[in-house]
């Protein structure tokens, strides 16, 4: 249709210039046309996208951009001799770990309907580009990797990191004050443990001894020179300021919360094994269970915190089984038994005594 119209327009153009009366235009059509304007050259702006007349401009724009990116990336990688990859190199590429936006997410973003076929076509291009990104990443071509990541990030879910880290151990995070927040559990007890390093007092600066430092009021006593002769040079060691570990549990000190020594020893054991007694302070909120469960839960929380603060002690704590959540729980009672294992009746065998 457009072709026909264009052909007509091209044919008529020289004729119209000389004979303005040659073409009849009904007045109703001239309502929107201003004076001196050609009716078929409207004041409307040309469409932003060349894909406007597809009806799905944004989708096809995305598709074209991705195909262009794929072309350029392929050319770059080929020039770097990274494509085509031999079999052994392809095995070295890490597997794909992508979290693309779902069809609904893209529908909401592009504000248009999207069929599954068109969505799959988009995803296919994204997967291809992601593969080139992985190749570039492994090869160390950082510039290319960053550019591709910029293109792909538009189509990734915002919580991609959280989804990929689901089920894995999260590293313990430090807050602004250098505190860690860890959780320990034992039996039915849960302990929330905040650990912070003890602030060491700043070393007192050595008092400067000035020759002219005295005021007129002070009289300097004559300094006696020591006449002691010693065969060995003895320098007494400087006294070390010893700090202690303060542990507060449910707003009470450790000694008040756990009257039993065994529970207190269980709480302190991670510090003892790691050799960090006096280096960290602990605040904990513990709920559930009894004294043994609560002390075990706090111990696990402290061990995790120490492993985060000082990663070197992690193998020591692993060896001492302090970083392991004790899986032992109370065994259920079974039918026809008094308790989990205890039987109801003790079997008694009547035996006749043989003389």
């Amino acid at each position, binding site marked *: 249709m457009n072709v026909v119209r264009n052909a007509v327009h091209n044919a008529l153009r020289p004729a119209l210039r000389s004979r303005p009366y040659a073409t009849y235009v009904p007045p109703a059509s001239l309502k929107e046309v201003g004076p001196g304007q050609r009716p078929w050259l409207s004041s409307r702006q040309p469409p932003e996208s060349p894909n406007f007349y597809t009806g799905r401009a944004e989708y096809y724009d995305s598709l074209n951009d991705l195909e262009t990116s794929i072309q350029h990336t392929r050319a770059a990688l080929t020039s770097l001799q990274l494509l085509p990859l031999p079999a052994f190199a392809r095995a070295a590429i890490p597997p794909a770990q992508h979290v693309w936006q779902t069809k609904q997410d893209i529908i909401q973003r592009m504000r248009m309907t999207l069929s599954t076929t068109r969505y799959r076509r988009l995803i296919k291009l994204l997967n291809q580009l992601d593969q080139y990104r992985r190749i570039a990443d492994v090869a160390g071509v950082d510039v290319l990797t960053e550019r591709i990541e910029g293109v792909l990030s538009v189509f990734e879910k915002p919580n991609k990191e959280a989804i990929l880290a689901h089920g894995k151990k999260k590293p313990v995070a430090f807050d602004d004050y250098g505190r860690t927040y860890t959780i320990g559990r034992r039996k039915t007890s849960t302990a929330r443990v905040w650990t912070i390093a003890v602030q060491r007092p700043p070393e007192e600066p050595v008092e400067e001894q000035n020759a002219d430092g005295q005021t007129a009021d002070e009289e300097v006593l004559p300094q006696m020179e020591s006449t002691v002769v010693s065969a060995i040079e003895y320098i007494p060691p400087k006294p070390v300021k*010893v700090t*202690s*570990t*303060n*542990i507060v549990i449910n707003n009470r*000190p*450790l*000694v*008040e919360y756990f009257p039993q*020594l*065994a529970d*207190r*020893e269980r*709480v*302190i054991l991670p*510090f*003892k094994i790691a*050799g960090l*007694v*006096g280096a960290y302070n602990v605040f904990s909120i513990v709920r559930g269970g009894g004294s043994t469960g609560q002390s075990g839960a706090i111990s696990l929380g402290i061990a995790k915190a120490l492993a985060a603060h000082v990663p070197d002690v992690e193998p020591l704590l692993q060896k001492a089984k302090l970083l392991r959540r004790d899986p032992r729980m109370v065994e259920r009672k079974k039918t026809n038994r008094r308790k989990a294992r205890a039987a109801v009746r003790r079997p008694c065998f009547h035996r006749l005594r043989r003389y």
Partner: protein
Amino acid sequence: MPSLATTRCSFRFTVPLSRSRPCLPPIGQTRGYVVRPGDTRKTALKTPQIRNSFKAKHAPASKKKAFATPPYTPMPTNQLTKSIFKTGERVELELPTFSPKVMNDDSVGRVLAFPKAKNEAMRAFGVPESALHDFRILSRPCSVVRDVTISTFNVLDAAGQKSSRDTRLMMTGPTGCGKSYLLLQTVEYAAHSDWIVLYIPRGLSLVDSSRDYAYDLRTQTYLQPEFSAQLLRRFLSVNERLTNMLKTREQVPLQGRSVPAGSRLTALVKAGVDDVNNAPVVLSVLIDELSQQSTHPVLLAVDDMQAMYGYSMYRDPHYRQIMAQHLAIPRMILQYASGKKAFPRGAVIGAAGTQHTAFKMPLELCEALGLPPPRSTGPYAKRSSDIVDFARGLQNLPVSPRMSVSEAASLFEVWMQDNALHTGQVRVDDELRSMPNDELFMTKYAEADGNPRAFVRNGLLATQSTI
């Protein structure tokens, strides 16, 4: 003045002597093997013949003899020949002696051994059970000087020139923070500073119905003759030199004799010691005489003083509980602690005990000292006006619940040098030897949070770990 013999009641509530508390064994004994006096039996007991076979009547129970000697008698060291006793490795601690002259800020954190004199206050009056437990294990009774010790001694020095009404203190703090030890140090300091000292190390024995008691119509209180006699005996052995300088003002009529006016106080006390029936009167007269003299300052020190402010375990003929203020000796303590009576020079110092749950600090005493109440109370909780009266003016002397690291380190070194610790075992020459190190100290200090009892008794001595 009517004779006291006619005013005494005819009935008397006595407790069998077998229930009386044994006297204090000698202090400074090392770990010994317990031998009971009646254990060396060569022949078996004869069983009584049962005559009636149908219903055997119970054989008459053998009468238990009262212990003349204390039941805990350690074996002499020459009989401890087994290697496990390690007799050859016994250590006598060499520590500086406790003396008022060395008490200054420089001695904070130092461990000082109590002197070994025959008339030592600690030896005569006895020590609280917490200290006794430690002294039985250590080779020499000693204690660490804390910052609160020095400040208490300064208060005592100032109190020596003032009336005891101005210095009425109560040592308070959480359980195991060192109140009894601080009171013991105060008593020793006063005794060595030429004070007259009257020290009751176990105030609970006054009110827990373990001593005999008798109602007295004249004073309308319950007397405790045996306890009074014991207290007088102990007082005499410590303060004889000072009481020799003092004389009675009036004649004192007693049962069977009379002490003339102007006689030495020592003679008066001996009269009470010789006859148990005279002891309560002699004790009250002695305290009166001490409250009239200003030659020597007087220290009245009572451990578990909170037990005086409440009900005792004694019962009257109607089986009602007797209040401690109706017993003669606790009443005397309350009168001096409340300021109703006072020594012209001296102090009244008590320590709150936390071990016996039947004798907790009452609400009235908490409010007088400014402490948080034992449980959530309001204006509608009943407060006894008598106890409020007796508690008025008592000042709080808080003892810090936490020892400093240097104080704890000195204490740890004492136990370590005495070979009393079993942790920190290291294999030396095919033998496990205990070599405590700083890791043990730091872990126990952290576990105890600096609390002295939790550090020593429930930490170092109670731990079952040997690494």
